[in-house]
């Protein structure tokens, strides 16, 4: 025995787990909480699922695994790409040893690759065909009505249908997890629930506002998750270890901040035709542009087809940009909490691919990288936004290990290794 179970809840903040445990909505977790270490955990920079999960499963920072966001521009072009499992440049923990692993629904691991055990990729996955290894499991997954992701379209159409879909997807995932639990002799079992991120984005206000029509359903969703946690925990033996994590937190959106609109206003970004949203329409005179959520890239000569920023001018422009964003306010409140240079937060062979500036916003301000908006601020149907400093970490293990005082997502692999007895 001495197996490791990891339960991931995408986008669930420390505060929510704590609150629901205290209020008796999640009694199983409340119980576990007493028996282990429960802390807030720092997410990746930026606090996006693709970056964070990649850091979690490799144990290294983006400068080493090469994933800096949900989307990136292919160097030498202005074409957007969506990095996937073929893009990631560092090995995952299950690729580093010979043990059997069951990896269920970790985001950004499509297409699935050969490994020892079982792997079904989480969002973004185009089809089941390439999301599963070994392929022999596909008929079984189809039989169990396994769904890779919630249909977000429903979230735009009807909250009612969306909630139904959330629960359906959750059930299918859990039944599949239980089947796999018994089906093979694994050492590590990693099981991620991603509906939590979806419900957070669409219905965070339903959590904070007790009068909201979906408040009860929001709590019911987490209640069901707690039941599942209980089931899993009961299937574990005393010498197994349980790690529970989230990849980032969630909070109420007060206002979206359209970073590219800010860049346009201050003439860092110039677009050919105001209505076309495509990085190919940036004029050569553009000095900087942004990608989701708050990543700023200088339009460097040699790096991009219409790049004109020379090396000697980079520092000056970075300082101008820093100045602009430090002073950005909405209704008297400062928008940006911190501004990082790439060297401040990343290290490794892929440092050159990293954004030149990374913005971290104050609470309530949701940074967006869309080119379509001309106004600086706005709102949309999403009421929840990612937060960087309050993901959560929970560890219950019979081994005596050291858990960092202020853990961050990169530490998860370290913790696993310590439990396994590796250094």
């Amino acid at each position: 025995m001495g197996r490791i179970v990891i339960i991931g809840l995408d986008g669930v903040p420390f505060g929510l787990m704590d609150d629901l445990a205290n209020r008796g909505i999640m009694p199983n977790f409340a119980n576990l909480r007493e028996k282990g270490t429960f802390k807030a955990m720092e997410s990746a920079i930026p606090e996006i699922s693709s970056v964070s999960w990649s850091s979690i499963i490799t144990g290294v920072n983006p400068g080493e695994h090469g994933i800096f966001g949900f989307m990136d521009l292919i160097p030498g072009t202005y074409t957007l790409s969506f990095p996937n499992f073929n893009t990631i440049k560092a090995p995952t923990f299950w690729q580093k040893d010979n043990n059997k692993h069951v990896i269920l629904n970790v985001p950004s691991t499509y297409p699935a690759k050969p490994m020892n055990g079982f792997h079904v990729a989480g969002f973004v996955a185009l089809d089941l065909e390439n999301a599963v290894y070994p392929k022999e499991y596909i008929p079984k997954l189809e039989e169990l009505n396994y769904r890779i992701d919630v249909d977000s379209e429903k979230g735009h159409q009807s909250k009612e249908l969306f909630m139904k879909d959330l629960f359906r997807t959750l059930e299918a995932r859990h039944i599949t997890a239980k089947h796999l639990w018994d089906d093979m002799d694994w050492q590590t079992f990693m099981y991620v629930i991603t509906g939590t991120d979806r419900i957070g984005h669409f219905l965070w206000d339903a959590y904070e506002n007790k009068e909201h029509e979906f408040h009860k359903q929001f709590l019911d969703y987490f209640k069901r998750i707690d039941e599942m946690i209980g089931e899993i925990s009961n299937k574990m033996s005393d010498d197994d270890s349980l790690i529970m994590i989230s990849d980032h937190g969630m909070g109420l959106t007060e206002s979206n901040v359209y970073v590219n609109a800010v860049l346009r206003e201050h003439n860092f970004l110039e677009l050919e035709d105001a209505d076309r949203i495509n990085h190919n329409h940036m004029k050569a005179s553009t000095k900087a542009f942004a990608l989701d959520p708050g990543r700023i890239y200088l339009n460097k000569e040699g790096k991009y087809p219409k790049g004109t920023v020379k090396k000697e001018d980079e520092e000056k422009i970075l300082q101008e940009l820093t100045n602009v964003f430090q002073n950005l306010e909405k209704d008297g409140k400062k928008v940006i909490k911190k501004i990082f240079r790439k060297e401040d937060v990343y290290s490794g062979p892929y440092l050159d691919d990293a954004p030149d500036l990374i913005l971290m916003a104050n609470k309530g301000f949701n940074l967006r990288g869309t080119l379509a908006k001309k106004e600086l601020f706005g709102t949309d149907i999403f009421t929840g936004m990612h937060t960087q400093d309050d993901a959560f970490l929970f560890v219950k293990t019979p081994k005596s290990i050291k858990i960092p005082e202020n853990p961050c997502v990169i530490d998860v692999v370290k913790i696993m290794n310590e439990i396994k007895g590796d250094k």
Partner: protein
Amino acid sequence: MELYDNNFDEEVFKSDIPVLVELWASWCPPCKMMEPVMNSLEKQYEGKVKVCKINIDKNPKTSDKFDIKGVPTFLLVKAGEVIERVVAAKTEEQLKEMINKVL
């Protein structure tokens, strides 16, 4: 003028002047052959009628909306309303007749 998913609504349905738009596909020989005719019409009606086209495979959001059953499909739009919708290659004369109805 080539349109895309992200500016189709703005250019066609919010236009002040009438719009003739061709929905085309690269695998459709009649569509490819219509190009010089559309370009000629664009010049002839400059300022009076907007003549443009959109590729349906590369712009799935737009082609979804119009339930395309055959290409090329021509839409004549005035003040946000679809006045006429025809399918198949047309002679320059036939398209001009169509346009003149809304001038």
